């Protein structure tokens, strides 16, 4: 176990190394490592350095604005927030059962979002690590390096992203800031021309997705033991599940399993999530630490996202993804696959499923129907849950008589993975960094562990010049010994100022 690395004894006597901000991770996070004079790791933490204030942003707004408003919480998965807010506002207006057209159009949008998100993560953010190795030269270890050495793979990544974005555009009405999902349904159906347009490329998209699954299997098999061991932790896993146990990222009950695959709870109505989950707080992080109430904070933390979803489901409804799932589960040998790097593999199985599911929907005539909206009796409380690309996403709203939001609670996917990410970096610190002179490739291993979760630590603020990487080295007296800075343009050097941000 690595949990003894969460809080060191006498931290004031230790060297501090800061990785800030994390690269190829959305948002403002940093990792701090405390080392003794022999470079032994004594403390490792992932911090979220920005208070996001999501709930305050939402309070006081009229409920009907929420599906559009919440897209601005995150530039990476705005569609997930759009759809989950729509689900919550369905409840507020008493729309308990959407029309077939509305639900299928929302599902199509969600598959498009998940496909493009997974494609970006694998082809852009993580394939450089996996294809070139974690200690590859830093200037080579990025998407440009992938394009140079593997031009077809890189191009497929771009085109998969583009296809997913086109699905979103068609279903949401716009490329960004879409308005497709509204309380009680959707505001437009799909035209036959739009359907034909998306049908044209779907077989190619499926083929590329299938090739991506084969690629990750090959990468894993080439260094199987290493990939199974790197940053690996035993954890509970939680995800949404369809009533018959099928993989479902849009709607279902909550299922949690322990590290051995035994059921903790199953088919839980997500409206009662507060009875099953609690959110812990730690003094050193703005991000909460959710856990399963019945197991307590020490043993009840869990993982969400592709790894949890593929491990937890009983089957996929599409044939290619189902075969890929069986291949994946075989490596677990009757246990859930706990390898952190297996997130990448599971993510690509989901990519393949999304491609297949999009094709199925594009041959379903319900998409063309104009029966798009339902209404019911207004309710004061609305909860929406879905499986966003990074994991289970909760939106909980309570409104007053004027329809204004009085209370909002959001548990975003990355928050669900908070403790697990911390555990993974401690495992890496313990096994790969302890006692060694720290170098950029070694520090990158910490980031590789975090990137496997595809965390979204903040929201779409990206202004030029805002995201350098800084590494500070302090001695046991807290004095700055050395400092390196990598600017957003990739230049590495000693920063002009000597401000200590560690």
């Amino acid at each position, binding site marked *: 176990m690595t949990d003894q690395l969460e809080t060191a004894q006498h931290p004031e006597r230790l060297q501090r190394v800061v990785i800030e*901000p994390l*690269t*190829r*991770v*959305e*948002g403002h996070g940093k990792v701090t490592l405390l080392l003794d004079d022999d470079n032994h790791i004594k403390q490792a933490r992932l911090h979220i350095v920005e208070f*996001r*204030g*999501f709930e*305050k*942003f939402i309070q006081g707004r009229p409920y009907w604005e929420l599906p559009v*408003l919440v897209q*601005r*919480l995150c*530039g*990476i998965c*705005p569609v997930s927030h759009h759809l989950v807010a729509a689900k919550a506002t369905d409840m507020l207006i008493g729309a308990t059962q959407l029309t077939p057209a509305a639900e299928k159009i929302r599902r199509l949008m969600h598959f498009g979002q998940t496909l493009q998100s997974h494609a*970006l993560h694998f*082809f*852009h*953010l993580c394939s*450089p690590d996996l294809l070139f190795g974690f200690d590859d030269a*830093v*200037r080579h270890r*990025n*998407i*440009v390096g992938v*394009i*140079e050495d593997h*031009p077809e793979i*890189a*191009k497929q*990544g*771009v*085109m998969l*992203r*583009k*296809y997913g*974005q*086109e699905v979103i555009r068609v279903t949401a009405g716009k*490329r*960004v*800031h879409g308005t497709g999902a509204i309380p009680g349904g959707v505001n437009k159906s799909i035209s036959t021309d739009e359907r034909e347009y998306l049908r*044209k*490329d779907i077989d190619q998209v499926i083929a590329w997705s299938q090739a991506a699954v084969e690629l990750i299997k090959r990468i894993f098999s080439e260094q199987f033991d290493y990939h199974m061991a790197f940053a690996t932790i035993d954890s509970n896993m939680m995800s949404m599940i369809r009533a018959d146990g099928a993989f479902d990222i849009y709607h279902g009950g909550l299922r949690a399993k322990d590290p051995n695959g035994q059921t903790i709870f199953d088919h839980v109505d997500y409206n009662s999530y507060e009875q099953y989950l609690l959110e812990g707080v730690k003094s050193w992080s703005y991000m909460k630490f959710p856990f399963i109430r019945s197991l307590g904070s020490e043993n009840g933390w869990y993982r969400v996202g592709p790894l949890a979803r593929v491990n937890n489901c009983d089957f996929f409804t599409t044939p290619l993804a189902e075969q890929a799932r069986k291949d994946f589960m075989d490596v677990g040998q009757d246990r859930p696959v706990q390898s952190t790097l297996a997130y990448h593999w599971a993510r690509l199985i989901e990519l393949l499923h999304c491609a297949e599911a999009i094709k199925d929907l594009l041959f379903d005539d319900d998409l063309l129907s104009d029966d798009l909206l339902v209404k019911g009796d207004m309710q004061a409380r609305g909860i929406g849950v879905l499986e966003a690309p990074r994991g289970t996403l909760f939106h909980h709203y309570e409104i007053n008589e004027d329809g204004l939001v009085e209370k909002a609670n959001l548990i975003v996917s990355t928050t669900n993975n908070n403790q697990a990410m911390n555990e993974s970096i401690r495992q890496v610190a313990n096994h790969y960094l302890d006692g060694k002179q720290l170098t950029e490739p070694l520090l990158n291993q910490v980031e590789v562990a975090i990137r496997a979760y595809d965390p979204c630590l903040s*929201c*779409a*603020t*990206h*202004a*030029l*010049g*805002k*995201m*350098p*990487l800084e590494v500070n080295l302090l001695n046991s007296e807290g004095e700055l010994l050395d400092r390196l800075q*990598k600017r*957003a*343009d*990739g230049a590495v050097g000693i920063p002009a100022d000597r401000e200590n941000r560690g």
Partner: protein
Amino acid sequence: MTDEPQARPILVFAYGNPSRGDDALGPAMYELIEAQQQKAGLLNNVSLLTDFQLQIEHATDLQHRQRVIFIDASLTASPPYEFHPVLPEQDLSYTTHAMSPAAVLSVYQQINRQPPPSAYMLSIRGYEFGLGKPLSGRARSHLQAAFEFLMEGHVLNHEWLVEAWPSRS
């Protein structure tokens, strides 16, 4: 999926999060230019795009363009704005999911095996980027100055040479 042979020759890609304080400078410029197009019927040669941030697939939006102008908020630009040519560069803008304009141009070059259109970066100085915050007063002033530069300098209307537009701030 991506080919638009009838695409307008100039693409203005103004990006940022409208609800993130001065990060809204890009989308605000988008709205100003769009209003100009609708009000005066001008700028018919200009396509407008916006997004939260640049991603790899935006390389496909550059196809069939003669010129691209990226517009973004900047924490480092000299106020009120800077305007520079951008060349394809294999930089390391892999900090988070957002790419630099140079890297997007580079992706275009790599996947199309041809040079990208000529490109420019209009960086407008911003200061505050908090969620739910409005544009700051200084940023609003810089936005107006940058808009006037685009309009009065005829950047969007006239043919111009790369050499004619040195770094300006």
